[in-house]
């Protein structure tokens, strides 16, 4: 611009996204619901990584936790019950430029969406999956979920759940090509934040199970854990989830765990005496399907027409 001194002719100031830039309509989860904490953590990760909101997509299914995209001011896809994964894979298949989060619940992921869960882990596309596991169906009002503990009463099992709960960590670690599996808790914001951030930074499908309190139906389930942190085992390792000094005080139980050892990860996942918290497994070399599906994005119209013409000509008589 004329009249301005040379040094003032700077480019537009770099864009600086604040937390507000990621905040959609006010969240309408129950007061005290663990989902609020996860939402805050995701927004903080987005801000700290300065993800352009228009380049960020949150995909979900159906359930309390699947309301998540509405509370973000990014692009969102609030889909069908159990079907967040195939939609997210479809988006990712041709859009390597986007930042993607998939939010699902224990009913959505571990019951109605089980087939997609298994295969999405195997596809290992670049997705950050957050399983908000409150051990219950909340939105439909208190039905047993696959992760409900034995003996817990619900509207569908008023005399108590007869089956042992499904373990989302060991199931995920049993899937060929799993590349990132972690567990965290909604009531420790620093660990929640660090875990989601590490999951976001992982290239491939990162699966984070979040133990999430439901104040309405399962408040007793994690209350005991919250008040007796000896029931939690903090996994520590240089390649694990970065830990703040405060966490050392809050988690009396700690164990060194190398996240590159699959057998050790499976063993930790299967412990039923404690909830392991931290990074169980990471494999950066796992095959990524999205690297295949995004090939050819740069083809010009002329190239596409030439290819079509070539195949069409084979049928010429």
């Amino acid at each position, binding site marked *: 611009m004329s009249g301005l001194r040379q040094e003032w002719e700077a480019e537009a100031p770099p864009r600086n996204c604040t937390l507000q830039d990621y905040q959609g309509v006010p969240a309408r989860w129950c007061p005290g619901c663990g989902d609020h904490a996860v939402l805050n953590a995701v927004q903080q990760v987005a801000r700290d990584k300065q993800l352009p909101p228009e380049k960020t997509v949150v995909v979900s299914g159906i359930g309390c936790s699947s309301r998540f995209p509405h509370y973000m001011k990014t692009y969102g896809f609030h889909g069908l019950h159990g079907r967040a994964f195939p939609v997210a894979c479809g988006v990712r298949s041709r859009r390597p430029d986007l930042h993607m989060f998939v939010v699902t619940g224990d009913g959505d992921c571990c019951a109605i969406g089980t087939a997609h869960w298994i295969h999405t882990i195997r596809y290992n596309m670049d997705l950050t999956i957050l399983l908000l596991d409150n051990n219950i169906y909340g939105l439909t009002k208190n039905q047993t979920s696959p992760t409900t503990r034995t003996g817990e009463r619900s509207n569908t099992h008023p005399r108590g759940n007869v089956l042992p709960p499904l373990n989302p960590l060991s199931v995920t670690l049993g899937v060929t090509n799993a590349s990132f599996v972690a567990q965290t808790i909604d009531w420790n914001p620093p660990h929640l934040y660090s875990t989601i951030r590490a999951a976001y930074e992982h290239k491939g499908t990162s699966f984070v199970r979040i133990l999430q309190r439901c104040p309405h139906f399962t408040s007793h389930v994690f209350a005991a854990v919250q008040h007796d942190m000896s029931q939690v085992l903090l996994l520590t390792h240089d390649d694990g989830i970065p830990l703040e000094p405060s966490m050392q005080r809050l988690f009396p139980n700690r164990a060194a765990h190398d996240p590159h050892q699959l057998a050790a990860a499976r063993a930790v996942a299967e412990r039923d005496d404690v909830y392991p918290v931290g990074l169980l497994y990471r494999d950066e070399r796992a095959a990524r399907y999205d690297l295949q599906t995004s090939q050819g994005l740069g083809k010009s119209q002329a190239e596409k027409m030439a290819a079509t013409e070539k195949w*069409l000509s084979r049928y010429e008589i």
Partner: protein
Amino acid sequence: MSTTMADLEATPSASTVRVVDQHIVEIVSDSGEGAQTCGQMFADLVARNGNGIWTVEIIPAEIEPPSRSRAGASGNRIRLGSNPVTNAGDHADIVVALNEQVLYSRIDAGALHPGTIVFVDRTWAEHPDDEIRRRYQEAIEDFRRRGYTVIEAPIEAQCRQHTDDPRKGKNMWALGLLCAIYDLDAATVRENISRRFSRKGDAAIEKNLALFADGYDWTLANVQQRFRVPAHKHAQPMVVMNGNQALALGIMAAGIEVCSMYPITPATSASHFLANALQEAGGFVHQAEDEIAAIGFAIGCSYAGKTAVTITSGPGLALKTEFLGYAVMAEVPLVVIVVQRGGPSTGLPTKIEQGDLLAALYASPGDSPKIIIAPATIEECFHFVVTARRLAEDFRGPVMILSDANLATGQQPFPKPQLQSSWLAPPVEQAAWDQSVPPFAWDPETGLSRRPIPGQRGGEYVLTGLAHDEASHVAYESAINQKSMEMRSRKLAVLKSALHPPQVHGSAEGDLLVVGWGSTLGCIEEAVDQLRGEGHRVSSLHLRFLSPMEPGLKKIFERFRKVLTVEVNYSDPADAAFITPESRRYSQLSQLLRSQTLIDIDCWSQVPGSPIPPSRIVAELRRRLEMLRQES
């Protein structure tokens, strides 16, 4: 059989050549003996020659059925004509069978009639197994009793002079036989054989050429029957392919980059083609973990501003219906191809039926208005994909293409499409979005709106299958729900206003109007033409748009005394036990037409698992015309 003997001419040998305007040939063998290759090569030759053709694959249900079994018959039917051929026709004029048992499967299917010339490999007459020899002799006698002209050809014995494995060579010998009978240019055939076997080396080429020549020479020396179907060289470049290949090429031509599918017969062969070809055009085929994931993946692509198709058949459609409803509700452009097969449930996987019209229209929760189109020819299979993509984007929602097993495996020549770069235009521009425009800024008159896609700054919104307002915010208010339902429905009325009334085949008025849709076009028109030739006042009309339907139907129907749909799906026969006008369940299109026009439209529909041949339609229409005559 409407073969007309137009002419007789003498040939250098004692035999005479009958000139016919059309003929039907079948070649059948055990699975693995190459009858399909022979049939395809023969079809390719006559199509190149300038003949019209329609071919049908004869496919066994198993991959490796036992040899010499009726269930194991594999091969082709080729109907060739002087003019374009629109359907597989009625009875075969010539059948080449590599054993007598596979021929029985064609007899069971009603493919033969007295007078059919049957070539059977007589090697079985000398087989060391008594039982096989006995069954062969009994069959030959039976064939003669049935009135077939039986010619026992020493196929295997002749082939043994050129190959140690005649099982792999009889098909080329049979090709030589057919080429001699139809007086095709042997030099062209030899070129084709050389090209086809070029990858297998010179020895393979030589062997196959020798087998072909032997069959050709043997026929010239031993067979009196010769036919010529005069051909007209095509004035423009032509292609010949089946309906699934046409769909696949249409997908590429339409600039669709992702085909998301789960294996299901008879749709899957389109994906086989695309698995290679689409990658060269920069796209890919996603084989999903199930039918639901296949459509979900495609919806994800489309939401992200990319172009996607999902392709399936009836049982897969059943699984996809929840996501189809989502695509309607959230207004996600999507092309959904359904290659129909016999139902209900897993039904008849390899056989034709038009049973999914109502499922396509209604099988989603709530009111889910969507566009449904149905190609009637192989050529339309190609072009309708291009149309469907355009409609999906302009009208912001799913467009379903209903093909069927008859189109999927039938082959027909058609003018080679001229590819257009406009067909490939990206669906949306990536420029910034005007923040003041909501993601569902429904035009109050048309219901149409534009959509932002991820990456467009200012357009951030959350797509949802819940009731929502213009901003895509979840909204349960009565007025908003009423309005948004109206907006989604309005789009169909807008599309309908842009369509032309369908053309009537025949006169615009008369006694009987036959209405059809999909692959029955050729059979219906052939039947109507035959009856019109006899002076009957019958016409036909074929619908390509089924939702919304082409306009002006009531006016057209009112000019006929009776309107009758002919469909390959189930309806109760009007005169069966317990069936009254009140309890009778009508065929699918007739139900829709009755409700739309309030005209007492009748139906005649059958579920034979095969196309209804023109002769059966003629017979039924005759009956109907006679009923009308008696009424008046």
